[in-house]
């Protein structure tokens, strides 16, 4: 028995550490933040949030300047430049998501301490670990982008997921949160098991856990009469397992309950971070079977095709029926996964670019919208009914504006960022000949317009019911600041979509890092 891929460990480890500086920074920050949360000094405790945000932003910046595509290619990363786009992007949006969380953890406790009604009790305060968990999760996504084998993918995904289970449970610690957590955790565990089984089958079919080797093996199989059933089954189970992360049919059932039960900022977090992880996982796993070459096995294409249609349709149709905003957003996020699955099903490099851009647009819009929604709350919970938005324009004009912008962007009204996301998915799908998917996509955009219209109209048009108890103001300014920043980005970034898209295209360009990977491949061949 030999280790299948005797890559020269010394060199690759060094390369990989070079790639992993952002994650290391995040993990370090997580430790620091966890400790800071236990401080008796309110100022230090109050700095947990800002420090976390700064850490995330710093890791994003770090990702810009470390771990070039050459290094990644040398390390055998399938899409060597992917991380260069994804890590800063995720960091930017994660920073926004962290800002949306501003002030909500331990809010009652801190308020009581502020009133001198309670003393600080480190056993009760969770702010530190909450932020640490968030940072872990973000680090997990970042790790995933440079994954080279299935083990790494698995570990990174777990690193993304496990903290989010906790965040849902402890964020507010109320009953809906706990219920959401238990559903999320158990169903997540089942999905992970399914995914693992898929990985096992993949291993069985190709004899390797390394993505490039799996790709080679599949390539060889495809050249000689097609990928074996075992491989297809493995791909399928792995994909379905990953569907859980991206809330795609049939693994989306947990999403409405979990998103509704989780505190609003956590909902925002859930609707982006695991989703990115899931899509990156899908790209990596399916990349082994010729995703961007349009050579996926037909059953996989069919699976993606059906999943795309069902996901967006069920998502949008479900969203129409809701009265809870978080639940609506859950369905909305299911629908958006459906749109992105269209790009996967189209299976071209252009489509992949479109997907990566869409993730970005979706993330920015999510921060803008959730930040706007987070400005109001109710005692011990979120202000989650649409009616709670009534009259918002008078109390929170900026948040209102950002909710409107966000809903417009989600709908895909030009010239907002969301429009360009849909635009590229559509063009690439048209180019790939997936006309039916395009039709479904546009029809679903139409359906979605109806509930996004409620997000737009209620705060602007409706007047609050005089009998209802008024909502409270979120004491923290961070959510609204994040919302404004990202909402304005929705308006401004379209002017720079050209350069953003260039960036995305470089991220998926297989030629990137080719200069470095060629010698590396030669080297590995030599050592064999």
């Amino acid at each position, binding site marked *: 028995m030999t280790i299948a891929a005797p890559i020269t460990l010394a060199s690759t480890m060094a390369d990989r550490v070079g790639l992993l500086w952002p994650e290391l920074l995040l993990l370090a920050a997580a430790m620091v933040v966890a400790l800071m949360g236990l401080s008796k000094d309110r100022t230090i405790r109050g700095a947990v949030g800002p420090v976390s945000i700064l850490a995330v932003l710093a890791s994003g910046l770090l990702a810009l300047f470390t771990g070039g595509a050459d290094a990644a290619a040398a390390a055998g990363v399938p899409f060597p430049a992917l991380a260069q786009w994804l890590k800063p992007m995720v960091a930017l949006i994660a920073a926004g998501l962290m800002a949306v969380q501003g002030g909500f953890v331990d809010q009652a406790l801190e308020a009581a301490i502020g009133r001198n009604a309670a003393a600080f009790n480190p056993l009760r305060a969770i702010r530190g670990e909450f932020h640490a968990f968030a940072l872990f999760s973000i680090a997990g996504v970042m790790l995933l982008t440079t994954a080279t084998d299935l083990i790494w993918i698995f570990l990174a995904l777990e690193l993304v997921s496990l903290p989010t289970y906790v965040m849902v449970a402890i964020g507010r610690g109320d009953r809906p949160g706990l219920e959401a957590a238990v559903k999320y955790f158990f*169903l997540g565990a089942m999905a992970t098991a399914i995914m693992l089984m898929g990985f096992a089958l993949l291993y069985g079919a190709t004899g390797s856990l390394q993505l490039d080797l799996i790709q080679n093996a599949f390539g060889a199989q495809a050249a000689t009469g097609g990928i074996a059933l075992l491989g*297809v089954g493995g791909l*399928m189970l792995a994909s*379905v397992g990953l569907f859980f992360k991206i809330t795609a049919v049939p693994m989306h059932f947990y999403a409405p*309950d979990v998103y509704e039960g989780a505190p609003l900022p956590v909902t925002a977090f859930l609707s982006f971070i695991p989703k990115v992880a899931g899509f990156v996982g899908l790209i990596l796993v399916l990349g082994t079977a010729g995703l961007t070459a349009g050579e996926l096995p037909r059953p996989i294409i069919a699976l993606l095709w059906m999943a795309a249609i069902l996901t967006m349709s069920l998502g949008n149709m479900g969203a129409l029926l809701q009265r809870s905003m978080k639940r609506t957003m859950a369905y909305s996020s299911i629908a958006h996964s459906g749109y992105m699955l269209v790009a996967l099903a189209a299976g071209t490099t252009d489509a992949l670019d479109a997907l990566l851009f869409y993730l970005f647009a979706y993330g920015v819009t999510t921060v803008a919208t959730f930040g706007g929604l987070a400005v109001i709350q109710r005692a011990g919970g979120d202000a989650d009914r649409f009616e709670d938005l009534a009259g918002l324009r008078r109390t929170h004009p900026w948040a209102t504006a950002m909710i409107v912008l966000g809903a417009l962007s989600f709908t895909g009204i030009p010239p907002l960022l969301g429009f360009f996301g849909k635009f590229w998915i559509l063009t690439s799908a048209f180019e790939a000949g997936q006309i039916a998917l395009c039709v479904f996509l546009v029809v679903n955009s139409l359906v979605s317009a109806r509930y996004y219209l409620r997000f737009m109209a209620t705060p602007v048009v409706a007047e609050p019911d005089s009998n209802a108890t008024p909502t409270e103001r979120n004491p923290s300014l961070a959510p609204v600041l994040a919302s404004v920043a990202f909402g304005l980005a929705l308006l401004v970034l379209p002017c720079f979509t050209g350069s953003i898209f260039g960036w995305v295209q470089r991220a998926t360009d297989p030629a990137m890092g080719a200069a470095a990977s060629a010698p590396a491949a030669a080297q590995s061949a030599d050592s064999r």
Partner: protein
Amino acid sequence: MTLSPLTSMLSGTMMASSDIPAATIAPEMAWLGWALALPAISALVCTLMALGKVKGKLPGWLTVASLGTCFVLIFKAYQSMPEGPVVIPLAEWMSFSWGPTDFHSLQAALELYIDRLTIFWMLFVTGLGTLIALYATEYMEHDVKAGYARFFAGVSIFLFAMTALVMGGNLLLLYLGWEGVGLASYMLIGYFFTRPSAVAAAKKAFIVNRIGDLGLALGIFLTWRCYGTIEYSELFQVTANAPREGPWEESLIPYLLMLGAFGKSAQGPLYVWLPDAMEGPTPVSALIHAATMVTAGVFLIARCYPLFLLQPDALTVVAWIGGLTAFWAATIGMAQYDMKRVWAYSTISQLGYMFLGLGLGTTFGACFHTFTHAFFKACLFLTAGAVMHGFAGQLDIRRLSGLSRVPGFRMVSWFALLGGLWLAAFPFSAAFFSKDEILVAGVGSDRADFQFLGWLGLLTAGLTAYYTFRVWFRAFAGPVHFEPGDEVHGDDHGHDVAHDHGDGHGHAPAAAHAHHHGEFHPHGPRWAMKFAIAIIGIGAVLAGYPAYESMFLHKENWVQWMISGSTAVGGAGVVEHVAAEGASHGHQVLGMSAHAATSLAGSIFGIGGILIALYLHLIRRSAADSLRRAIQATPIIGWIPNAAEHKWYVDEIYHAVFRVPLWVTGHVLHFIDKHILDAGVVDGIGASPSLVGRVFRPLYGGVLQSYAVTMAGGVGLILAWLAYTWLRGGF
């Protein structure tokens, strides 16, 4: 098919119609454009005055002045008239081109087409227009504080549009005038706008006219499509060389144009608006709805006669419609009690004669009759207006009697008698000759149907004489007796009464005004009205002069000279030919020449009608009532008097056949639109996603295991499907 003499004549004159000389372009006559501009300016100024609530008679005098100037201009043009037609380009309008030749442009410039027909028409339009406007300055004086300026704005708009209609150099400009006079008519019929009946009448006039306009518009389209131009100067050059009875498209043109003419001239099925139009102030009735506007249809056909000559069948239709309308309207006119309504039906009837003349090929007769009719009918209306003015809106001949002996109304009565005699075509009156010209073309024709129409026309002449003098003997002769109308200032000025709220005064019962009766003093017309009546009456007399001239001095009839060399000339030539042949070649009718027979019969019918009226309505008025009762008692024809009084129920039939079904359809469609299409289909489709979404709701039951089952089931399905495809033979 054997060609009848008429049609062979027509074919013979095909060459003659190519005699229409090519138009010369005469920019140096652009001063004639002022005839178009002056009424327009006057209309604009009057409108601004109306909006600015100018009080005073300034708008009236302004209008009179501008119209008078127009008349002078036209008269000047008459004096300096060149031989052939003249085109005077004034400005661009709706012209554009996309290629060099005929069919590659739409030329509809603001240009005048002047030939003798134009001048002839404009002479009496502007002349009468001036006089009637003058009359109206006094007639409308009660309204000085209210609608005076609006009234004269309407008159000015009318004159502008009529000028465009008559003088315009292309069919589109004619259409502009056509609808423009419709607008003026609408404004003026609805002048007393607080009166619902006036509003309804105005609406009806415009809408019925619109049906005709539709035909005219389509006719213009078709003309362009067939000949590539709608400019007269080019069009008649093209048609001169066009084959007769060309393709169906061409053959349709005259029918469409005819529809327009029928609408404007209240002929055939489209006559119903004209009687109601009497809701307008009387000068309007005189000017627009008797003398000038309603003759626009005659003008249209005379102007486009070359197009009609290409389709003799179309002319036959015109003749039939004209003849039947003349008779039909006369039957209704016999049973009306409102003086103005009688005159209105007589107008329809006389217009019928004109169309009969056109159809029979005697454009000369038609134009001559138009000319004479304009004067005597204006005269009749103006006298009726004077009565109305003086007797507080009273026009019911059952409530007026012996007006000729009421102080201040003597002159009015005599001019009414003059008008009546002329309308009854009393021998050697102007209308006698003009009507004769038309009827002889029918009676003397070789064609049986034309002969029938000729005799029908003669019969109608008798009816005309009867109903005309029924009115005169009732209202102007006999013992003095009158009941004033229900308006303090006369019916016309009802809205001037200080009703601030609820102006629906309508026609209150006469009893309510009984106290007026004792102290009511009719006031006779003053100088302006008298002057206008007198001039127009004299004009009516003089209108016969051309006929006397040709009869006694054997000169060419002036009217005939006026239309010679115009587009109507082809027809005029034919008729002269026919008439001459009838006389010389022994087209014997009742043993006499056609001309003599017609004159004689016409005289007998006319005088007979007058005598019957004399007996029934002056000598023994009770006889009329007993006759009426006797007819009503007769089983089979008992319904006739009532039906005639109710205008043969035509309005009711139209209402039931056209208006009600359309109205019901409108409601049905509205229901469909609102409740089926919108609330059903559109909202249904809109709601379908959430309805479908509802189907999936049970899947989100909230129980952890059920989610797990669904998810695992999904995975299982996918795997099963994978296995199935694999077993089916791989992928």
